């Protein structure tokens, strides 16, 4: 068929090019986003610091003379002492704080990542479905969220622990299963405005099924708010975890977490400040890095807001 522009030559050329070239080269959105992310200095520094923290937390313990539960009977309640190999000092039981801080960071990172992942998955799917279908479905789904909000989450954690026994993994899932409520609300709000956009209607007019529309047209456009909220959720989860550990429902001695270390350290901050300072520095660094990384990701992922 003759093109109205009469540029059949161009078309033939292009068809020939297609013969030799399997996929035309173009910058994908991911490449584009990564390029923008790496151009952001604060985000880049955050990535390095976070990677460093994760590597040290997971591999550091293999290079230490002390394990996190080993007691050094000759060094109890001692400030940092390089000769004895206690770089961060020791706690009331003579355990090496550096080893414990590494183990605690490890634990906190795992809790945060697992719980955030659970909350993002449940929250996004639930919120997008609720917002997209709207009407009665939306009303029922959101009232359920409201009811869940109204019940104290401690109750859920206690019930979970009673049913399944005390296991850290269960705890992470439990926290995640509660944190998704806010995520679902945020996602629903965004979905309500997104589904009125014409590209969603165009997809409907094109015959796309609701599942395709939600997964392909709505969820990817939620990246901005979801990433921001997820980076805010991580610190919240770390704090929740420390609170649960304090109640005896979370991580149990001799294992530890950053939250537990800090809450223990704060009780003796005047006599043994190192027990508070070192874990606090690690936590603050992590949280700041996550915030900057979240900012950077949002800017990088959102082609509109540049």
């Amino acid at each position: 068929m003759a093109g109205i522009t009469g540029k059949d030559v161009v078309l033939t050329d292009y068809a020939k090019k297609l013969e030799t070239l399997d996929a035309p080269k173009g910058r994908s959105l991911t490449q584009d986003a990564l390029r923008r992310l790496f151009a952001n200095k604060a985000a880049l520094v955050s990535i390095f610091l976070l990677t460093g923290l994760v590597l040290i937390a997971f591999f550091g313990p293999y290079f230490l003379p002390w394990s996190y539960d080993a007691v050094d009977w000759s060094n109890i309640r001692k400030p940092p002492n390089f000769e004895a190999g206690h770089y961060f000092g020791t706690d009331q039981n003579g355990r090496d704080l550096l080893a414990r801080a590494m183990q605690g960071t490890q634990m906190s990172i795992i809790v945060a990542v697992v719980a955030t992942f659970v909350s993002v998955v449940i929250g996004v799917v639930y919120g997008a479905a609720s917002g997209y279908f709207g009407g009665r479905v939306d009303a029922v789904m959101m009232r359920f969220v409201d009811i869940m909000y109204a019940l104290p989450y401690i109750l859920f954690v206690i019930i979970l622990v009673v049913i399944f026994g005390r296991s850290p993994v269960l705890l992470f899932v439990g926290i995640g299963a509660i944190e998704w409520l806010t995520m679902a609300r945020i996602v629903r709000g965004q979905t309500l405005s997104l589904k009125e956009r014409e590209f969603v209607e165009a997809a409907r007019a094109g015959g796309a099924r609701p599942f395709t529309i939600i997964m392909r047209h709505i969820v990817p456009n939620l990246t901005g708010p979801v990433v921001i909220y997820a980076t805010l959720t991580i610190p919240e989860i770390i704090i929740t975890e420390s609170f649960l550990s304090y109640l005896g429902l979370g991580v149990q001695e001799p294992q530890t977490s950053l939250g537990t270390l800090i809450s223990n350290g704060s009780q003796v901050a005047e006599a043994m400040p190192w027990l508070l300072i070192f874990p606090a520095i690690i936590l603050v660094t992590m949280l700041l890095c996550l915030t900057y990384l979240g900012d950077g990701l949002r800017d990088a992922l959102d082609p509109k807001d540049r």
Partner: protein
Amino acid sequence: MTDPLLDIRDLKVHFRIGKNWPFGSGVKTLKAVDGIDLAIDMGEVVSLVGESGCGKSTVGRALTRLEDATDGEVRFKGKNVLDLDRNGFRPLRADIQMIFQDPFASLNPRLTIEQTLAEPLRIHGLAHSAREAREKIAKVLQQVGLDPSVMTRHPHAFSGGQRQRIGIARVMILSPKLVIADEPVSALDVSIQAQVLNLIRDLQRETGVAMLFISHDLGVVRHISDRIAVMYLGRIVETGPKSEIFANPTHPYTRLLLRSIPRPVPNAQRKRLGATGEPASATNPPPGCAFHPRCPLATEVCRTKTPPRIDLGQGHIAACHHTDQREAAPAA
């Protein structure tokens, strides 16, 4: 005479607004479309014109099933499509396509042009391999006047006019039988409007697709349509061939619309428009002829009786009590 491609009979789309329970002040019914009849033949371009809120977009949305019709029949190739459920209607979506108004909202910012254009192909099983899809996409991009190499890029890299071309490509790639163009150029810059409009007209002539062209701008409509239907408050008040409507407008509302086309004459004396006031509310339409509160010809009968459809010959139909009293047709 053969059956028209699309035959709309007494189509009604009513919305319930407000709520009774628990704290609402009562449900009202907004009659966005209140019984319209319209037929579109193969290869014909019918324009639906009217002011904001008269329900013209709702007609288009009801035809593509983006909105549920309350009552009436829409026969497409002789089959009532309003009877079909969602899954039954899906195959027909390839035949009835829609061009959207806002090119900045109608493309998913996260998908490349190729992904956007491949989606309808995939849904309707029109491409059996990635390469076939890509070739079709290259072809349709060429048709709408874009270079095929743009397919790897994202919508943010394009201007409004280019985006609208992509929106048109998304429609044309399915080779539809009927295209509903919902104000396709009104969101564009005036300098771009003509280009896109010419493209739509050329594509229409080339492919012979039937078209329902929804617009508030009679200047644009004159350029493209074969037949015109004028809508006021959910009803069609006048319909006829383009030349008839422009040369011989009968309904006072049509005359009002024609007189409000801006003319490129500086300092020209603006004639007083025959009608004043705001359009009546669709939740509470006036009795009789809905236009009577604004109509210069209104008499007692207009306030009480719904006007009959009067056939003026040559397919020219007007719903007015006073078709015999014509003001001088404006030199449009």
